[in-house]
């Protein structure tokens, strides 16, 4: 009986593996196998000769001025935009947790920018942030000198605002779900014990939210790379220097078909993403343990 069951289980396992096949083949062909080739390209001098040069390509990319600028800008942007996206969306979620009227309408409104194609809304952004645009017109009413928003050091601020506009709703939904799962009794007990709103937030809610904080941070980090869309659609392939993103660098490198540079740059980014996301997980694991230890 037992043997028959295990034979049956094995058969089920094998049959269910067949379901994996189409996806597995596609992922192998379009992602995993070429990634292996990317590793190979990054280590040789050129695809024809195939002479092994070890880390030369990486060092070249690392010292490349355009790459440095692009990574500095991208880092700077993510460094500002991601924490803001986490904190502000948590605030929105808590705002909707309060018993305000028209709650579900507000949720719809906050979520709507996510569904608006970047290309559609970029026209309005151009009208607002152009030197002769609406924002400067309003500011001049208060006697503030016009600023060339997209072509000055303020440009990073503008794209942070655009990023928040588009992404806060998504994060807010995640936090709303997490807030709803905090056991009511614990909050009530704390309230009876005289914990104020601040203590209830920092001592209780934040701890329950820590897994969501991690995921929202990671998801925001990933979408922060997509800010290239707004930048490209607003300012084209050659933007102001503080808006020159890693994707711009990649586009230009693709144009020159420099496989070594492309491969090395992609792998550097691959490694950087793994390190950042891995360390976020480690931090959360420690904080999470801390909660259980209480």
């Amino acid at each position: 009986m037992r043997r028959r069951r295990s034979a049956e289980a094995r058969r089920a396992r094998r049959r269910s593996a067949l379901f994996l096949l189409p996806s597995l083949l596609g992922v192998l062909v379009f992602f995993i196998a070429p990634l292996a080739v990317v590793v190979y390209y990054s280590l040789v001098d050129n695809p024809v000769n195939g002479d092994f040069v070890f880390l030369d390509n990486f060092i070249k990319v690392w010292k490349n001025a355009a790459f440095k600028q692009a990574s500095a800008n991208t880092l700077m942007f993510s460094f500002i935009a991601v924490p803001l996206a986490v904190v502000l969306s948590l605030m929105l979620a808590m705002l909707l947790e309060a018993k305000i009227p028209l709650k579900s309408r507000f949720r719809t409104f906050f979520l709507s920018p996510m569904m608006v194609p970047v290309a559609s809304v970029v026209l309005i952004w151009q009208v607002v942030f152009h030197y002769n645009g609406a924002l400067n017109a309003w500011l001049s009413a208060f006697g503030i000198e016009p600023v060339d928003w997209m072509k000055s050091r303020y440009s990073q601020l503008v794209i942070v605002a655009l990023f928040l506009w588009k992404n806060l709703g998504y994060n807010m939904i995640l936090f709303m779900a997490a807030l709803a799962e905090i056991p009511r009794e614990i909050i009530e007990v704390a309230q009876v014990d005289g914990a104020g709103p601040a203590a209830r937030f920092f001592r209780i809610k934040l701890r329950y939210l820590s897994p969501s904080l991690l995921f929202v941070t990671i998801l925001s980090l990933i979408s922060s790379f997509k800010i290239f869309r707004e930048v490209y659609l607003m300012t084209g392939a050659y933007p102001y220097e503080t808006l020159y993103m890693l994707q711009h660098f990649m586009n230009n490198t693709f144009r020159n078909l420099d496989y070594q540079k492309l491969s090395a740059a992609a792998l550097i980014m691959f490694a950087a993403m793994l390190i950042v996301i891995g360390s976020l997980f480690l931090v959360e694991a420690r904080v999470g343990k801390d909660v259980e230890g209480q």
Partner: protein
Amino acid sequence: MKPKSGSAHRPRSARRLRKNCGLALLTIWAGLFAVLFLLPTVLTFTNSFMSSEEITANYGAVFATNESGGKAYMSERVNLKFIPDIVSLRQYIAVLFKSADYLLKFWNSVILVAPIVAFQTGVALLAAYGFARYRGRFRELLFFAYIIIMLMPYQVTLVPNFLVAKWLGTIETRWAVILPGIFSPFAVFILTKCMRRIPSSLIEAARLDGAGEWQIFTKVCIPSCKNAVFSVLILVFIDYWNMVEQVLILLTDKDKQPLSVFLSEINSGEISLAFAVACIYMIPALLLFLYGEEYLVEGINYSGGLKG
């Protein structure tokens, strides 16, 4: 019990008043945010009904800086307006009947996105069943690889995609964008999470009734994940309806590019059409949002846990 704070001694009505004031304040905050979130979309919509003269008069200063300033009525400064002076459908008529170019680009978007959405979901449904039905070491490892690929930005994944497109000779054809899209692991991730929540007793019962793997898949798993499938359809659609990065590298032929890229290249002479085109491009996404908001929310919540 500890002595409580003074609020208990205060008359009840005063406390309620204070609570209501706080609530009113929060509502005002929410309202302000709502205006900020809605305004750009609403403006795009209302401005699409402006006549071309009005657009030029109001926004000429932004879009026509490189042109010879020969146009009449152009003001120095932009004049952002909510309501057009005269509501006119002329721009829409011009887009729909007179300039085939925009319709062609819209069509390009459709034929790129539709197969990606349909086949990514189909392939992912199958794979999700494979991942959920049995969790051995190899499949766990593979699933982990899928998550890693999913987390990588386009700056990383476009290099492999480009190489494959070169080898297959699909570069500069729509397949260069469609094929990697179909096998992108995002939908697999969400649907696997859904299928893993199906109680194994349900599957076991179906199996004892003599159902084979295919029947369990089509009669038990797909129906129980119906909502997740809708969420995946919406999320994948909006991601690709917005595509920019892939197109700039894999499909540089302007005639084949989707509106998501082409819209920004509308020259200033046709700026009056741009708002109408932008609106037409928004409509499918917004309709999906209006009818599928609950699915969208559910899908977002599925995406919010990488551990499975």
